[in-house]
């Protein structure tokens, strides 16, 4: 027969200081793990909503990022009449030739200046990106030295507000609007008119890349193959989704470090949980004896103490979730493939919290096994005499 769980619950409540301190120790470990998982999850969400599976990004062969890529206007003339490209509202193929560069602007976090991606693009480029819409102000006018910035730029940079001027290329550009890309990386970009930006950078003939929209998923794949096989174009085409997915690799070292740290902390706090449970067993020797006299088997004593350890660590796991929750939505930034800032938010999802609790339970069940075995091995007479 099993000992009721209420017995364990009451024990935890009676020794509340010890319980809370042990649980808090486990909670901190869980919180560190959750923070890392939330960071990685936030980053990968940002990257995954940035790309569209129908978009095909065309770079120079061998170029890993838009910044080092080159794409000429004559290539564009050949490319835009390929089969499978969707038509825009004006009846023209949805193909956007873009020029990408980098600018420096002091941010709140980095007063010496952080890097931002600057993108010069034609109206088709805006039309294609369904996730991007204007949050306030207006779009830049062709032929004007005007730019629109992403909402993260407006939040993280004092000089990123409407009406202010930013400097890149050969002079100053006025911010006339703020765009919202949901969670996408476009929130950290500065957009201007293709012709204006490329002539300012003296890159009129050779821009950076080209983004085209395919009519459907099957044609997208066919288009990618077609472009990559075209010897004359000599380009590397990939789906925009794949391009962003590859950037998640940036966070791999951080992810490994974080998980290593959480695991090491877990070993430390499972020792602490063991300590608490050994003390509980020692203090309750007489109770254990009494329970045995009442007819509870060694097995049920083992189970009972083990359950208590698991309850303790579950509490720790829940505390960890509570500690990590305020991180939800906090934005931070990481360098992207272009060395420019890419802002994203921590995302503490229910699934991540569940992972944390499961992690705590595993930690507690390993740590609680030995004290529980110790409790179950006590002889009735010695146990009754102890304490």
């Amino acid at each position, binding site marked *: 027969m099993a000992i009721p769980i209420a017995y364990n619950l009451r024990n935890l409540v009676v020794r509340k*200081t*010890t319980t809370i*301190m*042990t649980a*808090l*120790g486990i909670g*901190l*470990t869980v*919180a*560190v793990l959750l*923070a890392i998982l939330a960071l990685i999850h936030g980053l990968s969400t940002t990257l995954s909503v940035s790309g569209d599976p129908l978009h095909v990004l065309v770079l*120079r*062969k*061998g*170029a*890993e990022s838009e*910044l*080092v890529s080159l794409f000429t206007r004559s290539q564009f003339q050949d490319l835009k009449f390929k089969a499978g490209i969707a038509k825009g509202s004006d009846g023209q193929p949805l193909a956007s030739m873009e020029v990408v*560069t*980098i*600018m*420096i602007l002091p941010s709140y*976090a*980095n007063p010496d200046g952080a*890097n931002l991606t600057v993108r010069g693009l034609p109206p088709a480029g805006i039309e294609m990106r369904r996730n991007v819409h204007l949050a306030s102000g207006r779009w830049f006018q062709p032929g004007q030295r005007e730019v629109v910035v992403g909402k993260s730029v407006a939040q993280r940079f004092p000089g990123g507000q409407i009406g202010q001027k930013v400097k*890149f290329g050969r002079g100053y550009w006025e911010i006339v609007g703020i765009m919202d890309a949901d969670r996408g990386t476009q929130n950290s970009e500065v957009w201007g008119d293709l012709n204006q930006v490329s002539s300012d950078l003296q890159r009129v003939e050779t821009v950076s890349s080209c983004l085209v929209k395919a009519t459907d998923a099957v044609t997208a794949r066919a288009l990618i193959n077609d472009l990559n096989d075209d010897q004359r174009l000599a380009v590397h085409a990939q789906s925009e989704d794949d391009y962003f997915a590859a950037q998640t690799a*940036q966070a791999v*070292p*951080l992810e490994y470090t974080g998980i290593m*740290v959480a695991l*090491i*902390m877990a*070993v*430390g*706090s499972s*020792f*602490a949980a*063991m*300590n*608490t449970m*050994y*003390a509980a067993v020692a*203090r309750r020797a007489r109770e254990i004896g009494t329970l045995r006299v009442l007819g509870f088997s060694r097995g049920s004593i083992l189970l009972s103490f083990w359950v208590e350890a698991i309850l303790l660590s579950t509490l720790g796991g829940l505390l960890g979730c509570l500690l990590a929750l305020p991180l939800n939505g906090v934005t*931070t*930034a*990481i*360098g992207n493939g*272009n*060395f*420019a800032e890419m802002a994203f938010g921590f995302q503490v999802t229910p699934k991540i919290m569940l992972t944390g609790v499961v992690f705590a339970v595993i930690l507690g069940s390993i740590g609680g096994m030995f004290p529980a075995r110790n409790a179950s091995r006590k002889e009735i007479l010695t146990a009754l005499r102890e*304490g």
Partner: protein
Amino acid sequence: MRYLPLILKNSWRNRRRTILTIASIGISMCLLGVMVAMFHAFYLSDPTPQQALRLVARNRISYTVTMPLSYEAEMQRVPGVREVMVSQWFGGIYKDARDPKNQFARYAVEPDKLFTIFGEFHIAADEEKAFEHDRAGCVIGRDLANMFNFKVGDRINMTGDIFPGEYEFTVRGIFDSPRASDEMYFDKEYLEQSMPERRRGNVIMYDILIDNPANSARVAAAIDDHFHNSTAQTKTESEQAFIVGFLAQLGDVKMFLLAISGAVMFTILLVSANTMAMSVRERIREVGVLKTLGFTPGSILGMILGEACAISVVGGSIGYLISMVLMRGVVKSPFGGFLPSLKVFDPEVALICVVAAGLIGVLSSLVPAMGASRTTIVDALRSTD
């Protein structure tokens, strides 16, 4: 001090608990050791003597924007500058780029200046000569040579990404360096000649050797001032600052280190506090006995604080020893080559760790110790745990 044997005996009484506590603190502390060592290397340590003589200049906008080649001669004329060398980050793809092992650093430099700028590199004189005379030659660090089993005369094929094209390098020499050396240097002329006309004459970085470490800031400022009104403004900083700035691009490293250190310290505090609270509660009757024997509240307070301190200092020291093992791994990794100030053992770091452990011990036992020293003899003796 008189009570030291008693303190040690007390802490060794419940062996299992003491060992578990020490293990718990030790493991947390080894993490703290690594974090403190990293933080120290990043933000607090002095550069090595050779490093202190080097500045790095880049375009003010970004690590990815170039400067004209003509800057080299102009920088050479700035007072305090001994030598200026072009250094191009080549990037490139070697075999399968997804394997991190294949992503070692490659720089296009000026062969006749390389070993002047990096005074700490050692290479045989004939190998250095051979490197200078072969435009498609390269020299590689000992670690890189060991990793791929490269020998002098081997050929290394690479595909350019930043500088498109196919490249074939011949290993002309292998150099030794006090830090991790998984990097490769080749002649910038090779790169320059394989580029189309319009891309030539652009430089990503200049490595600058100065004559006196004390002038470092002044020379850097003089260079930046000189190019202030040019199309490409420069940012010149010490090699160490350059590396830290570069790493900061990857994310908020400082915040990451501080947050984890904070969490670890707080965990240690909790573990230690819990242990001390448990052991004081069990021994409250003894405290009564000690008081009857004439021990003052002060000495009882001291004994309990001392016990907590002893346990956490032992745990902290063990943790620091483990962290040295971990740091060996970090220093040996490519990351260590990046950050020459990273050391396996640093007396300052060791001191910080042990002192932190001791402080945490004292802090954690303050509440139970005060409680025990204040209870009256009668209450203490009557206590039945």
